[in-house]
């Protein structure tokens, strides 16, 4: 009797081990996450600890982002893209707002900035009410959802050269870059988000998504300083149709493009004034294609 029992338990044990090892990259469970409570973040001289963010996450974030960080919180069902983008799946470790090249993890500082800034035109508010320590703890918490943070290092932030003086020449040169790399395919020739490809855009999970409309007074999702805009098109917004242009726009040209994009924006700016004086016309989508 005893040996038969042993045989059965052995068989069961072996099956259990097999069954456990098979879905190793399937959905995470709460138990997996418990083992990653030690994750830290480093922002400036602040060290964030995942375990210290547990209460804040439960209180302020879980409704949208979900217990498992997969973006399936109770409220998420009611967010209807493209007007209200769904929360992202932290388990995939893919983030829009990064200072690092496309296909790499963002830095802790990037995630920290996103929490503080919020994401314009989405349900993610600014969390400037949190202390820096709380935000750093939440960064560590966000990281603990994805095994990518244990297997990979964040990318190296792209180098942004010092911002040059805005000139009429630079704005005109920026218009040439806009025409050459064909930003208008999605964003439209006047930045009104009405390019020929705009209506069919989808994010990586197949949900509808709208290109940024430069003219309606809203702010770019990943920040609205000149440096932020530079970063957006040189790193791409991973998980969305917005690609990285790092291989096709030189650093100096990138500043020209930033200045040209400013001319579309509703907000008053030096660039807008200059464009008016230059009487710049929108680019012609049917013009012969300029080569690099």
């Amino acid at each position, binding site marked *: 009797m005893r040996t038969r029992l042993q045989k059965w338990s052995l068989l069961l044990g072996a099956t259990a081990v097999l069954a456990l090892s098979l879905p190793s990259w399937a959905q995470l469970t709460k138990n997996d996450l418990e083992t990653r409570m030690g994750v830290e973040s480093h922002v400036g001289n602040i060290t964030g600890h995942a375990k210290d963010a547990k209460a804040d996450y439960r209180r302020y974030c879980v409704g949208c982002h979900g217990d498992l960080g997969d973006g399936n919180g109770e409220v998420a069902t009611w967010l209807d893209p493209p007007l209200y983008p769904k929360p992202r799946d932290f388990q995939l470790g893919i983030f829009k707002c990064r200072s690092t090249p*496309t*296909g790499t993890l963002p830095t802790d500082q990037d995630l920290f900035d996103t929490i503080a800034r919020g994401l314009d035109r989405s349900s993610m508010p600014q969390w400037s009410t949190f202390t820096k320590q709380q935000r750093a703890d939440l960064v560590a918490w966000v990281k603990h959802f994805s095994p*990518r943070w244990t*297997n990979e290092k964040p990318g190296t932030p792209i180098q942004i050269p010092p911002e040059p003086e805005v000139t009429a020449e630079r704005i005109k040169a920026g218009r040439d870059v806009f025409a050459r*790399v064909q930003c208008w395919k*999605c964003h439209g020739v006047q930045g009104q988000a009405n390019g020929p*490809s705009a209506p069919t855009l989808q994010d990586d999970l197949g949900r509808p998504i709208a290109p940024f409309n430069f003219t309606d007074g809203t702010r770019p999702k990943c920040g609205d300083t000149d440096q932020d805009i530079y970063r957006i098109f040189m790193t791409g917004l*991973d998980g969305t149709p917005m690609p990285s242009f790092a291989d096709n726009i030189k650093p100096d040209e990138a500043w020209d493009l930033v200045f040209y994009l400013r001319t579309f924006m509703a907000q008053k700016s030096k660039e807008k004034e200059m464009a008016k004086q230059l009487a710049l016309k929108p680019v012609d989508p049917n013009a012969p*294609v300029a*080569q690099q």
Partner: protein
Amino acid sequence: MRNRYNFAVVLSLIVLVCCAALILSQNVNAAGEGKITGTVKLDGAAPHMKGIDMSKDPYCSKAHANDTPHLETYVTGANGGLENVVLYISDWSGSAQTSTVVPVFDQKNCMYTPHVLAMDVGQTFKVTTSDQTAHNIHPNPNPMTGNIPWNQSQPPGAPPVEKSWKATEFIEVKCNIHPWMHGWFAVVKGPYATTDANGSYTINNVPPGSYTVTAWQEAAGTMTQKVTVAAGAAATADFTFKAK
């Protein structure tokens, strides 16, 4: 108790001996490599492939002024030969190939050429553009496999993008600007081949031994077959898929 220990010792010895034999046999036979060849067919008539309306981008529609582009989920040739099927050895235990070939994925006339690009884990491949319109090259793997998605623009005249993948996976590739553009990176381990317009293929550089050959088709799924490759000889494995 003692019996059980004896059994464990014998078992581990057998495993070790087998491993050693396997490694030795591969080293010894490396010179007399064989190959696996065959034909992949589609059973019955090919499903209707929808025509693509490219009027949204005048460059693309002009490029197809004299033909109608179609979706490429099933591409069949003479006698039902099925193109774009990837064949590989799914129980390959050797290392990744040290091939110096760089597979090229070209964006031409607003389509991907080839529609399916097979490659080895870690093998460098190139994405080029022959078009005078902007594309973005956007593969969408599952990041949990170790393959990380990226998204790069390729305006007219852009330099090639060179990349490689870390893990085996069939990765969908898209262009968000031209939503009809759809292709695959088939990342496998070990020797591989892709069927030509007639559905024929040859996997070269296969050391003698018994293998499971797997045929992968993007919509029909996979089929497998056992083959034995003799030194310097060709083994045959033909497949017939049913359209889904």
